[in-house]
């Protein structure tokens, strides 16, 4: 199993969630975060300039399609960081 973590600006949040739904993934965890990166300190100022972090647990076979689509549709225009980690999952049947 893989953990896909996407940290992006809040205005890209809906795009990511729609994309996950498109690949029939309905479960994710989302939280508002702040931090600093290529675009300077983020998470201050206007509500819609915040960052969010989206965590998705998924099976390896779905991963490459999703990553490809995220890279194609979001990387060029949005503030976004994506990484993948190996994880062990308890209650595997929740992710089938």
């Amino acid at each position, binding site marked *: 199993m893989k953990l896909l973590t996407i940290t992006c600006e809040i*205005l890209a949040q809906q795009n990511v969630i729609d994309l996950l739904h498109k690949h029939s993934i309905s479960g994710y965890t989302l939280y508002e975060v702040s931090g600093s990166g290529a675009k300077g300190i983020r998470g201050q100022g206007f509500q819609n300039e915040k960052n969010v972090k989206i965590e998705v647990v998924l099976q390896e076979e779905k991963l490459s399609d999703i990553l490809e689509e995220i890279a194609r549709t979001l990387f060029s225009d949005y503030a976004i960081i994506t990484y993948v980690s190996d994880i062990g999952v308890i209650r595997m049947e929740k992710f089938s």
Partner: protein
Amino acid sequence: MDILELVQANILTPVVLFFIFGIVAARIKSDLKMPEAISEFLPIYLLAAIGLHGGLEMRKTGFESMLIPLFIAVGLSILMTLYHYQILRRLGKFNIFDSYALASTYGAVGAVTFSVGLSFLKNQGIASEGYITAILATLEPVAFIVAIFLTNMAVSKQTQIKKQTFAKSKDSTDDLDIIHTEQKTKLFQVLRESITGKAIVILLGSILIGYAIDTDGFAPIKIVFEDLFIGAIVIFLIEMGIIAGHRLDDIKKGGVFLIGFALAIPTINGIIGVLISTYLGLSIGGAVMYGLLFASASFIAAPAVLRHAIPQAKPSLYITSALGITFPYIIMILLPVMLILSTTFHNIESMNLSYFVENLK
């Protein structure tokens, strides 16, 4: 009153002073900050107060008188968005996405600027037509729709050209088709989102409620929605000042052309608005608010809409110029200037009329 005197008196009002104070606090790197819930709550409160006020006033004036100013406002908003684009693209050499995003930011109305305008007139003891609030609500999505529609047209034209170039290889045309349909669906999504967005919903809702309850129904809530109005603007402007202050460094990155654009366009558009509304027969205060609709740039609604609709455009450009340059310029200088112009135009008109009447005798 002389223009300089009025500008000076206007700068020494709490609304402007607290905005400047916010900028200073940000510049000296103070940790002063509004609690998040309050900075989210205040725009909703301000829109509700503006809406109620508009609804109450509309009950007195009726709907019929607003139709012509409304249609002209929609037409002007579209025209202005188009000519902003031409200026930015041809003279400013911005790319197509930044040009459309900036064009619609300046074609759109600024609700915060509108609130400050109302409080400015209140300070001067001048009334304005309530239906201008309804025009504000109608104009909210217009400039965005124009810009998004035209951007989509431009993008599909580009994909068509790419398609012809890649016509030999079948795979790539399929890919381009997907991109094309994705662009198309976005327009409807954005349309729906901007019309059901919280700004328009709360504004239209409170206009209707204000219209329904009339002055008697308004009496028990007057203390919150009228007496506290300017105080709430002051608190909100501390926050706006802080955000603007953090962005001052970005202004230099925008370049001289953008600074000039952010000062000249509101002035021209504002004067056009004052002239046309004077001609349409709006009051002195009404003409100022009508001009303000076109002078103001959107910096709260615009990023939320444009980031989805034209993600290729750089938000730092349009937010910084609207909030960092145009907004301070309008609330400090352009508002008093528009008031003086409006008074002058009205006097000319009444002078001409009296001259005309005397001739008739």
